[in-house]
């Protein structure tokens, strides 16, 4: 088992003819992901790495029966691409693109919630269930199948931690990068909720960072609902200065809120062991 994606997940790539879209389509195909179509308006009839291109998400879904979409279109068009995917009947949308206006995402999130469509991201590395499917940009070779669920607001930091896990013999059930923006489609809690009932996920690594209060809320959820699974965390940004956006749009300590201390304290109160360094995580998992 895994959460959200599996061997039979049928994926379309929006922005498949672009540089990133094309490159990662190839990478995902090599990993074994079932990429069934791509979308670029005006390029219907072309193909990218053998994948047929359609003019619209609706046409792609109708022709391929896709249930999932991954979005690589440029930031100005990404919001609309998400809406288009949702209207086309896609039930899981993974938005890799970063730089979407916050107000757009705020509106989209409400729109998707009404429709019951799940969004992962934006500004995220996607998700992977090792050995089954990869819908994202993470380097597939550092993962191996296993029983640790990984959720993260970050990209490369996740790879760093997964690398440590894999090196220490821990495999991953599903690893999901939820994104570094102030508003994201799927929160820590949304994903924890899925891991809660996934029999193949025995323990969970939650990788947080400064900004917002998603980790504090996750801590509350964990203390109430996840007594039966071990949860380990790492929070990046203990040394980050206040009022500065640390790369991610959401990584900012603002008006005294969103500090690493607050998050560590909340998680520890919920019984979560919080690692000092990424390399300490495997030991805490044992």
């Amino acid at each position, binding site marked *: 088992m895994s959460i959200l994606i599996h061997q039979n997940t049928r994926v379309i790539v929006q922005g498949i003819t672009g540089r990133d879209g094309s490159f990662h389509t190839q990478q995902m195909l090599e990993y074994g992901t079932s990429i069934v179509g791509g979308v670029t308006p005006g390029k219907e009839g072309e193909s990218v790495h053998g994948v047929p291109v359609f003019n619209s998400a609706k046409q792609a879904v109708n022709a391929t029966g896709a249930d999932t979409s991954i979005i690589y279109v440029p930031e100005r068009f990404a919001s609309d691409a998400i809406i288009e995917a949702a209207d086309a009947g896609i039930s899981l949308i993974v938005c890799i693109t970063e730089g979407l206006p916050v107000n757009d995402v705020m509106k989209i999130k409400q729109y998707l919630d009404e429709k019951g469509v799940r969004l992962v991201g934006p500004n995220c590395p996607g998700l992977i269930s090792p050995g089954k499917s990869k819908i994202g940009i993470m380097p597939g070779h550092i993962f191996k199948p296993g029983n640790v669920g990984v959720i993260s607001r970050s990209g490369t930091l996740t790879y760093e931690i997964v690398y440590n896990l894999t090196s220490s013999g821990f495999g991953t059930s599903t690893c999901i990068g939820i994104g570094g923006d102030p508003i994201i489609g799927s929160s820590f809690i949304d994903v924890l909720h899925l891991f809660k009932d996934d029999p193949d996920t025995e323990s969970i690594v939650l990788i947080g960072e400064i900004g917002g209060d*998603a980790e504090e809320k996750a801590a509350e959820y964990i203390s109430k609902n996840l007594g039966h699974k071990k949860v380990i965390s790492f929070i990046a940004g203990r040394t980050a200065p206040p009022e500065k956006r640390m790369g991610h749009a959401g990584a900012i300590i603002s008006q005294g809120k969103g500090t690493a201390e607050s998050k560590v304290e909340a998680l520890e109160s919920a019984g979560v062991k919080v690692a000092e360094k990424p390399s300490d995580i495997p030991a805490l998992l044992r």
Partner: protein
Amino acid sequence: MKLLEHQAKEVFRNYNIKTPREHVAQTTEEACEHAKKIGTPLVVKAQVPVGGRGKAGGVKLVKDLSEVASVSKQILGMNIKQCLVKKVLVSQALPFEIEYYISITLDRASMKPMFIISPSGGVDIEEISKNQPEKIFNLSVDLVVGIKTYEMRSVYRKCFQDEKNPPSISDFQQLLETLYEIYLKEDAGLVEINPLIILDGKFVALDAKMLIDDNALFRHSYYKSLENENDEETAQEKEARESGLAYISLDGDIACIVNGAGLAMATMDVVKHWGGQPANFLDIGGSSNPAKMIKALEIIASNPNVKSVLINIFGGITRCDDIATGLVQALETTGFSLPLSVRLIGTNDAQAKEMLKQVKISVFTDMNEAIKVAVQHAQGGN
């Protein structure tokens, strides 16, 4: 990006929010001219994109026109929190008894815009929430039905109960509707009036603060044109931003070059853990362009505090060989001489190690090892 006070107030006036009579001036002469038209009493205010202007002496009350020149001269050219004062706002000084605070911003928890309103304004909202949390009223805005009248009425009653000449409830509603409209239409992350005062029963914005969502600047060419003017960045931060790097100056001596914001923060944290002090946050992003590495080294080299350089790359989309190419080029062209500690892992790391071996740079696979060496470098070791 942050708008300057006078820019934000111009937006306010476009939306029919009242401000004092005021004009911006770049020279003492201009300031005196404006002052004559406005009349005394007036206030001369430094236009810088940072807080704490008052405490720094950047805001002065002038009661006699003869003082305008000397006051403006004193403020223009000041440095407030590393920002040079290039403009002052000459503004009518209005009487008031109560200073109100009002702002609208994104509430990340509810994922909706939220008003924060207080009759204890004139100070930072943080200070109010520390000292008088009972005087802060929140008002969430629904994206479909907008501002809810019943909540608005309730805040109105609580907020203006001590006001002798309160504004009408429809004026209050109008103010909220307008701020919400500005928030949405201008893609503002924050619209703040502090203090908001009441003059003859009408609202007047004495000060103004607006943050515009950087991600939305593509649809706001006017703000984009102001971007350079409103710099609160250091020279390095600006150069980095223009090169597509995310860079933030810090006080330490170990420069960090990392790919990915989360890993960059974690790297800083681990530097600290091993006894070092990071000199910066620097995310070179996901691209594999060697030019970025060259630019990153240039920016770092221009910071005189830096004693040691740490490069930490987890190759995914970023290819380690591109990083190595950039590094080698940079060393050749810039005469870069600071001690380096390099950690590379992931895509094409073998080729990268080979390339760096040629120029006698040893490369770590383990993040902790690389960081420990960088800390030793900074402490004078090798």
